[in-house]
């Protein structure tokens, strides 16, 4: 029997490695990990980075979440919005527009009729202004939901904001599809001029709940 491509490639890798030394390597992890900043500083850093990426930022408390979400939706003229099945219904208490609850049975292209979408988030990184969405969490929804509509209103609890990348990555569940978002979609492909929004949502509204 002739060797399969798998056997051949693996044998080649083995052979290649036996042709010279393979010194033991210990990875030096002297970079910063386990950082923590007080709430105020973390919030300031996170907001600074989000704004730098052209995201729009609103802060609120648990009690004013619904009001601020409604403000964010109205600011962009949204009328018909989508939500993941597990989103806290109280968050839309002030919203009088149409709401469609997503489900895997809805073909993704149909999400194109939505003006916007409201979701929660899993964890964020202050230093880079990055929000991590867990595609298997009921309040964040499948990946297509936060991708196809043009407006994404994303709710972030300050307690879920970590200082740096290592602290945020440590919170992830690897087997779940995860999307890292830093500002709205952008391109600099034409003469290096930055343009917001090519394919993903052109507007990202981040609602930070400072007491949660």
């Amino acid at each position, binding site marked *: 029997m002739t060797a399969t491509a798998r056997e051949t*490639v693996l044998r080649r890798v083995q052979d*290649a490695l036996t042709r010279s030394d393979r010194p033991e390597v210990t990875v030096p992890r002297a970079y910063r990990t386990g950082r923590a900043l007080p709430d105020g500083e973390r919030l300031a850093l996170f907001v600074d980075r989000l704004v730098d990426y052209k995201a729009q930022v609103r802060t609120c408390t648990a009690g004013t979440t619904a009001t601020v979400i409604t403000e964010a939706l109205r600011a962009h003229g949204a009328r018909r919005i989508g939500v993941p099945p597990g989103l806290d219904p109280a968050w839309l208490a002030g919203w009088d527009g149409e709401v469609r609850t997503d489900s895997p049975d809805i073909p993704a292209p149909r999400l194109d009729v939505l003006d916007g979408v409201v979701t929660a988030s899993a964890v964020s990184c202050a230093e880079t202004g990055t929000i991590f969405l867990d595609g298997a969490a009921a309040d964040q929804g499948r990946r297509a939901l936060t991708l196809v509509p043009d407006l994404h209103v994303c709710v972030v609890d300050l307690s879920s904001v970590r200082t740096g990348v290592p602290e945020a990555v440590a919170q992830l569940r690897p087997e779940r*599809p995860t999307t890292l978002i830093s500002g709205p979609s952008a391109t600099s492909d034409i003469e290096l001029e930055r343009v917001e929004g090519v394919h993903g949502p052109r507007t990202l509204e981040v609602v930070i709940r400072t007491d949660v």
Partner: protein
Amino acid sequence: MSTATGPSARGTFLGMPAVPPRSPYGTGHLRGERTFPRAAHDELGNEQLRRNLGKATHSIRAKRLDVTGELPDWEALRDAGSAIKTDTMNRLPELLEELERKVTEHGGTVHWARDGIEANEIVTRLVRRTGSDEVLKVKSMATQEIGLNEHLESQGITALETDLAELIVQLADDRPSHILVPAIHRNRDEIREIFLRQIPGVDPALAATPAELAAAARAYLREKFMTAKVAVSGANFGIAETGTLSVVESEGNGRMCLTLPETLITVMGIEKVLPRFQDLEVFLQLLPRSSTGERMNPYTSLWTGVTPGDGPQDFHLVLLDNGRTAALADTIGREALNCIRCSACLNVCPVYERTGGHAYGSTYPGPIGAVLTPQLAGMHAAKDDPNSSLPYASSLCGACFDACPVKIDIPSLLVELRHQHTEQSGTTAEKLAMKAAATVMKQPKLFTAAQRAAGLGRVVAGRSGTFSHLPPPFRGWSDSRDTPAPPKQSFRSWFASADGAAAMRAAAQDGARHTDDDSQEAQ
């Protein structure tokens, strides 16, 4: 750094395993048609290219310095990144098997491809199975390297690039000129013309502004995203520990392709594997900051096999060799495989800045391309192999080494490749270097002075820092002088010194007398 140094033991012992084959000759995009000096000479005539490229490299360079400078632990991150990659190469067989096991456990299918031809066939077969004759593509160097689009086309399958720059390049029937900004050689008026000619139903009143042009691309591709059955992507990282794959991007076309179609096919070079999920904490800091000079790129997708109810329900990972094991068998090649394709070395390279990516003839341009390309595809496969001129496409100034987030010592690797080439061809490295230099640098004597100062120590002493294997062109030089190897001083620090200034003045005077001869030679 703990990469193996010292001469390789090639052919010394009985029973030494065979050298794995390089990427097959005559397929894919790992070899140009002209030698570097010739191609560079033509590209230099393109004013637009040089202006755009100059603007691009300078602006990305400045941004990169800003965002790397703000991290007090940047050097520690580079050390970690470098060590993780070295560790990866050392343990590649077990890591690849672990990755395969994890992807399979999560409902994906893993395929192995000995070379680009085989990878192309696998992808074609998988696409056919979906019944579709159109695939969406996310920008991917691996698929560009193997010429996947051309192969699919020959099989009656249309491959549509969805990255804005790649789309521009594809619609213009052109080739990418930069890893990161592939259409940097085009200006907005040209792009408007291309869109008007190639996009069906585009508004003839389309304005030549980046915003309007991007909007036209959005409208054109949106319909494709919504109806596509199958997409092909590359991968920035594949995590062995968990089977998680990752694509780093800005526009969202990646997310569209990774999420909306029923079938996803990912082609990944075997060197892109990372041992642990935790390693992302290092590379998600190193890659965006080195690449686009951003703290983080707008979008990164992580996925593991298949997720019921979310994204493609049929996922295939094609693991590609295509000369990578040949590179791995070589101490130079092994280090070059650590590259994470951030393009930082391109943006700081004075030679690249003048010629652009096309002159290198390969999918992988710039300093790392000059090392990686001959490693993957060889440099003696044809008479006057264009790849054999690539190790000379450098001033050895050292800027690429300083910029590289995984600390690949590109100048030293280039010098060793020059040894390998001159040993085989019997010609002199200096003559070939001058030929490339005369074309690119306009003032070849200045270039020589720079090369002497920055590179000669490396050339003479080799990577081991000893004089054990003196290359032929420098034998006479070292015989007639009792000189220790100059320190590995960076070109820029030398240039700034009084010594450097004096040498450059002398070289400039000398150069004024000889420039004509040298540019003759470049023809």
